[in-house]
């Protein structure tokens, strides 16, 4: 290739200065320190609230740790809860890198689950070798469409994605419920859910961690995080997404079609959020249940925030939020006054401490 040869010759020029960026340990530590301190501070505030309620903060803390990572099964549950949060966190992060705020992960993941369920129910005669892949694609495409719509509206009609994604969340609830109750309703019981997908679609072969519902979707989530990182930081498309997110006007000036880039980013975000459906339908429940998501989409915003919109950060913060979810579920039994709703206080405290960016800048300046 001509361009390549030319570039390689440039590289061999003798007088090029060495411009390799020095690795800054200080920057790296600061990057890590901020979320860690935020979490510890949030935890401290929440435990203070426990003290005021009259329960023992120590007991609450012990219960949290024991119940989230105390045994193999507990840890399995933690990772199972983390899986959808990795997807929604990545979804919010992709949109954020393009300068968009995706509040629609909740609607997108509902469509993802519905997509997987529909493929699984309708594709009874699908061969076993491709069934899980087709089911997964169903989830991604359905979620992707639900991301494409607000992306297109923003790029071509100028209407703000925050409004549109919120609206689309309501529509997603309505339409998936309608499909569940009037077209795919289970005949086996009175629950508001669809029938079970054909068995060849299920990830039953790839489950481990004993009795826990943890399944191959977790591995898929980690893989997705890696792919998102590669896309955003190693390809021209990712460069364009981040350029539009950083300075849309400058991107437009140099000829990047920011509308197209935003549509692509929002579609990707929708597809990744839709992958929650893989974990839910193909990995564990086997069907679409109305109201299955305890607001994974919205927690995903917090996950992305704590993970600083970086794929690796999202994975770690999703696991932390999964652990909180699992850990607090045991509080009902172990403590007198504190209930599992404590997880919401904890989440809120962490979000508040992370959001206090002004405070972080202050700390940073003072310590310099």
């Amino acid at each position, binding site marked *: 290739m001509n361009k390549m040869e030319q570039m390689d010759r*440039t590289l061999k020029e003798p*007088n*090029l*200065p060495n411009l*390799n960026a020095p690795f800054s340990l200080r920057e790296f530590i600061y990057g890590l320190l901020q979320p860690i301190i935020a979490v510890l501070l949030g935890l401290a505030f929440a435990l203070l609230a426990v003290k005021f309620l009259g329960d023992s903060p120590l007991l609450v803390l012990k219960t949290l740790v024991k119940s989230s990572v105390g045994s193999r099964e507990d840890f399995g549950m933690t990772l199972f809860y983390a899986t959808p949060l990795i997807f929604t966190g990545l979804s919010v992060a992709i949109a954020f890198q393009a300068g968009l705020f995706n509040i629609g992960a909740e609607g997108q993941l509902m469509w993802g689950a519905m997509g997987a369920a529909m493929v699984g129910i309708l594709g009874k005669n699908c061969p076993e070798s491709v069934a899980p892949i087709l089911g997964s694609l169903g989830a991604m495409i359905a979620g992707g469409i639900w991301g494409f719509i607000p992306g297109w509206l923003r790029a071509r009609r100028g209407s703000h994605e925050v409004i549109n994604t919120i609206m689309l969340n309501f529509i997603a609830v309505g339409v998936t419920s309608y499909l569940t109750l009037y077209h795919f309703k289970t005949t086996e019981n009175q629950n508001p859910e669809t029938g079970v997908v054909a068995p060849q679609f299920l990830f039953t072969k790839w489950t481990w961690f004993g009795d826990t519902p943890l399944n191959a979707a977790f591995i898929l989530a980690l893989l997705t995080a890696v792919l998102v990182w590669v896309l955003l930081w*190693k390809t021209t498309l990712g460069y364009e997404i981040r350029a539009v997110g950083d300075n849309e006007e400058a991107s437009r*000036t*140099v*000829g990047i079609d920011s509308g197209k880039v935003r549509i692509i980013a929002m579609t990707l975000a929708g597809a990744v959020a839709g992958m929650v459906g893989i974990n839910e339908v193909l990995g564990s429940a086997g069907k679409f249940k109305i109201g299955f998501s305890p607001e994974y989409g919205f927690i995903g915003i917090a996950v992305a925030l704590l993970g600083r919109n970086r794929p690796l950060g999202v994975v770690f913060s999703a696991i932390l939020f999964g652990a909180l979810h699992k850990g607090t579920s045991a509080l009902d039994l172990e403590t007198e006054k504190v209930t599992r709703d404590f997880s919401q206080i904890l989440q809120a405290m962490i979000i508040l401490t992370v959001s206090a960016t002004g405070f972080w800048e202050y700390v940073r300046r003072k310590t310099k």
Partner: protein
Amino acid sequence: MSESVVEFRKVSKSFGDLKANDEISFQVSRGSIHGIIGENGAGKSTAMKLLYGLYRPDADGGEIQVRGKKIDFRSPLDAIRFGIGMVHQHFMLAGPYSVLDNIILGAEPGSKLGPIDRNSARVKLKALSEKYGLSVPLDSPVEKLAVGVRQRVEILKALYRECEILILDEPTAVLTPPEVSNLLENLRKLKAEGKTILIITHKLKEVMSFADEVTVFRAGKVSGGLSIGDASLQKLADLMVGRSVRLTLDVPAREPEKNSVLEVKGISARRSGVSVLKSVSFSVFGGEIVGVAGVEGNGQSELLESLFHAAEAGVIDEGSVKILGENVASLSTAKILSLGVGYVPEDRHEQGLMLDRSVEDNFILGQQANYAWYGWLRKRWIRAGVARAMEAFDIRPRRIDLKIRGFSGGNQQKVIIAREFEKNPKCLVVAQPTRGVDVGAIEFIHGRILQARAEGVGVLLVSSELDEILQLSDRILVIYAGEIVAEFKRGEADENRIGGVMGGGSRGQR
């Protein structure tokens, strides 16, 4: 020289590791106009902010005396009480409020809880504006006023608070030449009434014309203080830069080539119902520099839009643009730029750079596909390209990992210049290339533009710096209210003549 009213004694101010002011010492005589000059980042604004109470000096950072007393201002309020006023470069006015309300804002006459006593303010302001010849319409909303009038409002605001010492930050940057002379007139009157005026500026010619004494800043230190009788343009420039600078350019004569690189035919455009371009036509040929002179906001931005975003709805109503022989009416911006066009946009922060990204990321902006192999960015290629450009364009510091935000204005601009010139374009569109750029970088950038001309590149230069236009352009077009109102050849016109046309005065030959 008369007694000094302001005196800096070894004043220092640091921000982190950076010493913005390093043992600054100088004196300002009572009743004088005192020019504070220096390049961007030389510390002149910091010094004035110390005087106005926006910053406080370092703990062991010397002292500032005003009227013989050591000052310790905690906020501008203290400074105002001490008779110091400041007119910021970006005016601090509330657009929809009337002039009167803007002036009394924060110092409303009348009791705390009672109604505002506008009448007493009106009487006082009338007297002030008569005394100093500062006429302003007291009841019009500020947003309806021209920039020059807004500036008078700001000055009146300071006088209303009974200031004796007035600081003006780059007061002429946004004014037309007639407005500038009007301002100078006003300042002389203030001086005659015994006020002391400090003017921060980087325009050496203006300092020479109005100041009584000058303090020159360089790299956080005072590099010279002299009365205007001892100063010359060359001397001031050398003190500012720290070496001998060439203020005038050698521009060799050159016949333009026969091929036109840019042809604009009768373009008109409207924005929200208002006509912003009125049948603008001109051509740029290879090997020539065509300058578009004009006060900002007279259609320059829309003209640039219509060159590069012609296909977007509502950019051009009528007319056509041909770049390097291609009609661009239906071409995307990416396609137009890939014809062989380099484009340095007007506003480098808004349109040219991603401030929080590295030099590397900014260098490939718009050319990411050229540094990629089937969609994969090639780090090695990018590094090589950036390394070469940083050498060739002397971008400092030579660090590709630093955020662009951390570079000086001149070096930020050089990154854009490097990016666009390294494409080897045949047509260059360069807008406000030296705005907020230091003297050294201006010299460099002008040299590069002339070099491109020598290589046969056709250059369209849009600038509101008249000096720049006059020095570089082979032909000068003057734009006023969206219309090309005059055209001059090199050497045909001087500053005064073009300045008059720029302000909407008599039309030149066309």
